[in-house]
């Protein structure tokens, strides 16, 4: 009886399958259909928009609207620092690669905003390391008293069959807000006329309200605003008086021109007056980056922030809005202020940066984190660090504790990718023949290792660094057999190379990036991996349609 029912079910399945075949729906279409049906995404500002079909249907009007605005997005007032991509280096000539970590995520949110609006981002808006670091890799938690774990993985390179990718992953210790030191926060809010837009001041207010909701009763918040002149809207107030803080936020209105310099000075004064020894003393600057500062130049502003960082007051930056975004300035300020730079393009992003990940945004678990990789010339002919162009350090900076580097927040993960040219393969743009000296040959020891990764970090309240080291064994797996995290990072890197139209993109292609993103989907509890897949597919269509 049971087997007869089973036969019936199989027969029905075969007939259904035949119907599909007869109606001409081929293998490829079915595959796409099957994958599309899994792709439930959350675009900024939309609630669970599902499937590419729905997104594609909306794409045309969005693109038209953008065109009608005369290409204001990205082309009008947004300012990006020029990026010169890291070249391939020969291991025999430069065996050491040194850089500072970067936990900023702003570039991914900004790129998403462009693509969602039906436009490809400007090349210099694409900082590949920030795109990779936007995602939560959930590497294993650290052990003992080390604040972050370190792991490496090697796989074949999806955009160059002769190369490999080395992934270095750091996972910061997760800390609940209850365990964090008492916070002395000063919100420094831009309320100039340019903030008078639904995606700026209203989003800023709702985001900060979310943050306030999560803080401890004994944490303190002050609000400084700046426009034509700066002013203290709310003196340092304990979160136990949450009603007063939210009322002050609600009452903010945009108007006037910006004088960021004065506002920053006032914010630091308020932070210093309420300084909590051993606490989390931080200014949180929220702006669209329109720093048409009066007497204070950009360099003077950066100097001020560096000086205040040394006094124990850190700076985090939240970017809002479009058309006027001073992305390069905001990134520079957060770098110098030992803080994190996030771009808030939607209420979903506000919920992520100021809600679920607020501990990482607010609480630094290790500062001045530097990475130095020594490659083994017996195994690696050359290498290229993907991204981190403005985080490169000189070899000697690794040992120099006076040299500033990036911070890692509670629960943050940091991922760096190297494109590896294995020994025996020609290195692109190899160095020229030397006239006066010889390139040194490998020692011949540890021949089964590809590299040694060294890391230095300082405890948040210390000035002397600690050293971690880990070896990377030789050998790599095929990218298809690699971990979901490796596939995800490779997909994002490939996507970034394509958006940048990088000279190092090799055979990178949108379908390959999409395929890797699909394979990396896993549980995708937050929906961010599904969102990546849809962005890759939309960018592919925009490229074909020539919407650069």
């Amino acid at each position, binding site marked *: 009886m049971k087997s007869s029912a089973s036969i019936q079910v199989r027969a029905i399945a075969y007939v259904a399958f035949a119907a599909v*075949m007869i109606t001409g729906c081929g293998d490829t279409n079915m595959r796409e259909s099957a994958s599309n049906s899994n792709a439930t995404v959350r675009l900024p500002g939309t609630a669970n928009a599902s499937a590419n079909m729905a997104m594609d249907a909306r794409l045309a009007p969005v693109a038209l609207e953008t065109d009608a605005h005369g290409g204001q997005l990205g082309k009008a007032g947004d300012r990006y620092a020029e990026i010169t991509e890291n070249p391939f280096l020969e291991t025999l000539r430069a065996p050491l690669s040194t850089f500072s970590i970067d936990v900023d995520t702003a570039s991914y949110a900004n790129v998403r905003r462009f693509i969602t609006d039906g436009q490809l981002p400007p090349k210099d808006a694409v900082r590949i390391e920030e795109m990779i670091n936007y995602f939560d890799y959930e590497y294993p938690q650290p052990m003992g008293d080390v604040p972050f774990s370190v792991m490496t993985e090697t796989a074949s390179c999806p955009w160059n069959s002769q190369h490999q990718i080395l992934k270095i992953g750091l996972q910061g210790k997760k800390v609940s807000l209850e365990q964090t030191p008492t916070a002395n926060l000063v919100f420094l809010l831009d309320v100039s006329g340019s903030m008078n837009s639904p995606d700026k001041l209203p989003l800023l207010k709702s985001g900060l309200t979310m943050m306030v909701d999560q803080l401890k009763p004994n944490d303190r918040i002050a609000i400084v605003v700046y426009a034509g002149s700066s002013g203290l809207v709310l003196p340092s107030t304990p979160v136990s008086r949450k009603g007063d803080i939210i009322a002050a936020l609600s009452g903010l209105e945009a108007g006037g021109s910006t004088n960021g310099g004065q506002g920053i000075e006032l914010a630091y004064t308020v932070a210093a007056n309420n300084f909590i020894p051993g606490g989390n003393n931080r200014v949180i600057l929220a702006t669209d980056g329109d720093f048409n500062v009066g007497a204070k130049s950009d360099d003077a502003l950066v100097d001020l922030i560096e000086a205040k960082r040394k006094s124990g007051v850190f700076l985090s930056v939240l970017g809002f809005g479009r058309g006027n975004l001073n992305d390069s300035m905001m990134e520079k300020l957060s770098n110098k202020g030992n803080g994190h730079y996030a771009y808030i393009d939607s209420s979903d992003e506000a919920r992520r940066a100021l809600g679920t990940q607020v501990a990482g945004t607010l609480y630094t678990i290790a500062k001045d984190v530097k990475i130095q990789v020594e490659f083994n010339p017996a195994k690696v002919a050359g290498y290229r660090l993907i991204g981190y162009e403005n985080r490169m350090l000189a070899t000697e900076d690794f040992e120099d504790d006076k040299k500033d580097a990036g911070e890692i927040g509670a629960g943050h993960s940091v991922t760096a990718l190297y494109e590896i040219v294995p020994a025996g393969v020609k290195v692109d743009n190899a160095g020229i023949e030397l006239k006066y000296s010889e390139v040194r040959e490998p020692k011949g020891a540890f021949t089964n290792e590809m590299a040694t990764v060294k890391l230095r970090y300082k405890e948040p309240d210390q000035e002397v660094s600690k050293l971690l080291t880990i070896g990377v064994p030789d050998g790599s797996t095929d990218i298809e057999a690699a971990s979901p995290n490796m596939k995800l990072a490779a997909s994002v890197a490939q996507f970034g190379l394509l958006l940048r139209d990088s000279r190092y993109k090799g055979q990178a292609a949108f379908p390959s990036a999409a395929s890797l993103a699909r394979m990396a989907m896993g549980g995708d509890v937050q929906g961010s991996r599904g969102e990546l897949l849809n962005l890759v597919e939309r960018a592919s269509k925009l490229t074909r349609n020539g919407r650069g």
Partner: protein
Amino acid sequence: MKKHLAGFALYNLIVIVTVAAYAYFAGVPAYLQPEPTSCWTHLQNADKPLTFEVLGVQYDLDRKILLSRITVRWNGFGAPPRSLYVTHRTGTVEGPANTRYSSDNIVRAAFQGDRFAIIELETELEAMPLDPSANYYSEFAVSHMPNLRHGAAVAFSEPSQVLFSHGSRSMK
């Protein structure tokens, strides 16, 4: 009329036989096949009652202690074992000359009623501390029976990298 009906029936028969033959020989496309469920995984692992994955290995140079974290899953029938036996060998890529072997570490009540556990071990290497100028790799064996009993061959895991924490020896 009968001829038409017979022709239609014959047509249907040909279609069904063709499709059935295609499905039989070509198989159901991989993307239509269901993902293996945890139940299936469980059955696959029936011959491996205990599976484990090494999450991290770290050496504290100041304390001369090797820390390791391992996830363990009991796939066997019946209740999980009360004790687990964990042993490891740690060495460089240069071969066995520098290898340190641990004795069996007994982890009691690891599962605490569940079929999944995370165990953390601290192994003292005071007598043979690791050399900070080299990189080390650890291989583990986890069993519900003593690993080293009767000198039998121990099935070790793939090597895991050891993260060196240099502590007070961080500066030159």
